[in-house]
């Protein structure tokens, strides 16, 4: 269907098996990296233009260069596999289909930054995938690829899995650190940044699973090769996730900058029942939604999505057909943020609940004329006023849905304002579960 050869989700049977992986050139990049200096590895990653795949799109090479090379303290690497953003389900695909490439990337990262301990943080719900990855790690230990004096060199590193227990916020890098330390997953103030003061106060780097899985091919083929894949400002392939009203949902690895219409119609098999599109979420539930008018000719990478005031996030695309009730969808998303707010910052803790109550009454035919303005006001007061980006993530879908789908909100409010009082009484008691 496409000439593009996947870099991560390669079309090789049983690639999760270490023998198969090694037969196909696996761990050769790591062996190559063992002979390179840390600076040379980081330089190669910088040249590649690889950006973090967790949503913030921070240049990976630059992040690595922030780690102090000379320090008395131990250094740590955390691989972020919390993957709790609604509509994201890419990392589990890596654990299932190509775990060794991720492990190899982790080893190269450890070599580049002089790290002796790496933690892989995986959400608690992913138990079957934790078992799969643990098996892969055990196999790599057995081959002497992880552990002390790897392959006879003076380089040693350990990789451990840390299982989460159900908290979206632990995907936020500093909350993740607290969670590994055995605390409640509440984000920390930045600065100090994790590169200087991370796990147990030691220098720490946090990378997404997909980011690390991209490292071996970069070392193998060079940064320049990687920088030519996809869009120059967001190089490489992306694991796009298609879900919602779509004929062929799933994960598709394609070059960054693939047309959204191609993703939906060429790869995703089009909208279910051949319906028209009402709304699209381009990169996980917290990213500002798009209207049907905006998707024509839109390339899916961070730079191009900025032109329609959205971001690539984790690449989780949700397609919604013409019959979708926008208010209901936004209410459901807000309920998620209300449930997951760690409760540390007042604007987020109180604001998410407030937005949910307003959306709930609009949805239930109890809306008031001033509600839309109030909703926008609350969202604006959460955005930018919290320790971590969770506040923005909760505010954006509401704020941008109002902006882009105003008629839907107005229609529901108008209907409820015009509803006779007698019809309202039965739903006066608003019930918001949990």
């Amino acid at each position, binding site marked *: 269907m496409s000439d593009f050869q996947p870099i991560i989700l390669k079309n090789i049977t049983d690639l999760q098996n270490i023998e198969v992986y090694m037969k196909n050139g696996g761990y050769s990049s790591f062996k190559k990296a063992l002979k390179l200096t840390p600076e040379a590895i980081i330089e190669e990653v910088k040249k590649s233009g690889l950006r973090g795949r967790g949503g913030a799109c921070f240049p990976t090479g630059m992040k690595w260069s922030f780690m102090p090379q000379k320090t008395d303290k131990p250094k740590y690497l955390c691989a972020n596999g919390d993957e709790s953003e609604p509509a994201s389900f890419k990392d589990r695909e890596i654990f299932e289909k190509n775990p060794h490439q991720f492990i190899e990337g982790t080893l190269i990262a450890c070599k580049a930054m002089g790290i002796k301990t790496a933690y892989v943080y995986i959400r608690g719900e992913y138990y*079957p995938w934790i078992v799969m990855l643990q098996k892969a790690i055990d196999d790599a230990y057995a081959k002497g690829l992880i552990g002390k004096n790897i392959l006879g060199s003076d380089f040693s590193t350990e990789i*451990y899995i840390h299982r989460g*227990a*159900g908290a979206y916020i632990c995907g936020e890098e500093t909350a993740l650190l607290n969670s590994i330390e055995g605390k*409640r*997953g509440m984000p920390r103030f930045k600065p100090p940044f994790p590169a200087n003061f991370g796990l147990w106060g030691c220098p720490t780097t946090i990378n997404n699973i997909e980011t690390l899985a991209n490292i071996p091919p970069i070392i193998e083929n060079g940064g320049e090769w990687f920088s030519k894949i996809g869009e120059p400002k967001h190089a490489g392939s992306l694991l796009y996730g298609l879900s919602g009203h779509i004929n062929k949902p799933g994960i598709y690895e394609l070059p960054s900058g693939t047309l959204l219409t191609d993703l939906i119609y060429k790869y995703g098999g089009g909208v279910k029942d051949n319906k028209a599109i009402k709304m699209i979420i381009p990169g996980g539930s917290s990213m500002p939604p798009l209207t049907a008018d905006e998707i024509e000719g839109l390339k899916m990478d961070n730079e191009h999505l900025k032109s329609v005031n959205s971001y690539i996030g984790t690449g989780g695309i949700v397609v919604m057909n013409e019959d979708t009730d926008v208010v209901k969808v936004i209410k459901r998303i807000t309920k998620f943020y209300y449930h*997951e707010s760690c409760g540390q910052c007042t604007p987020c803790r109180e604001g998410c609940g407030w937005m949910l109550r307003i959306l709930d009454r609009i949805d239930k035919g109890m809306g008031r004329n001033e509600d839309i303005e109030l909703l926008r006001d609350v969202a604006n007061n959460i955005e930018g006023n919290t320790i971590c980006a969770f506040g923005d993530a909760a505010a954006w879908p509401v704020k941008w849905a109002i902006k882009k789908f105003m008629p839907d909100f107005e229609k529901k409010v108008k209907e409820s304002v015009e509803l006779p009082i007698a019809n309202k009484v039965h739903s006066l008691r608003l019930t918001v579960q949990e």
Partner: protein
Amino acid sequence: MEIKFTEENLKKLEEAKSHYPTNDAALMSALWLAQYQFGWLSTDVMKYVGNLLNIPYEHVLGVAEFYTMYNKKPVGKHHLQVCTNVSCMLCGGYDVVDYISNKLDIGIGETTPDGKFTLIEAECLGSCGTAPMMQINDYYEENLTKDKIDAILDKLSKS
């Protein structure tokens, strides 16, 4: 019942402790082990875990309360956690909840009188491409249909 980890779990805990520079960090692993052995985290269980790791009970409680997967009250043998977040909702996640709720005659958060099933509504479980879906204890059941749910519940009720 005396609350005490089995020898095997004590060994697993020692191993978890060896992964971290502090005892505190092994708390989440310890709570998982406790939940598997005792079914849920009662006050006594949390106190026991706190003593083992030399962590104040209040801290253990704080952590247990923060993470939704730790059961702070007893749950049925089969914990049905149906995702209703956006992708599942679009594909009928709420219909799945309603269907199971009617079939088992329990509401959300309730357990059947025989203690076999507990039904809850879960947040996104990262299975959006195979919606609607639910998690039963530690494994996923995906692409649910009424027939599939019938078959699953039928099988589980006999076990």
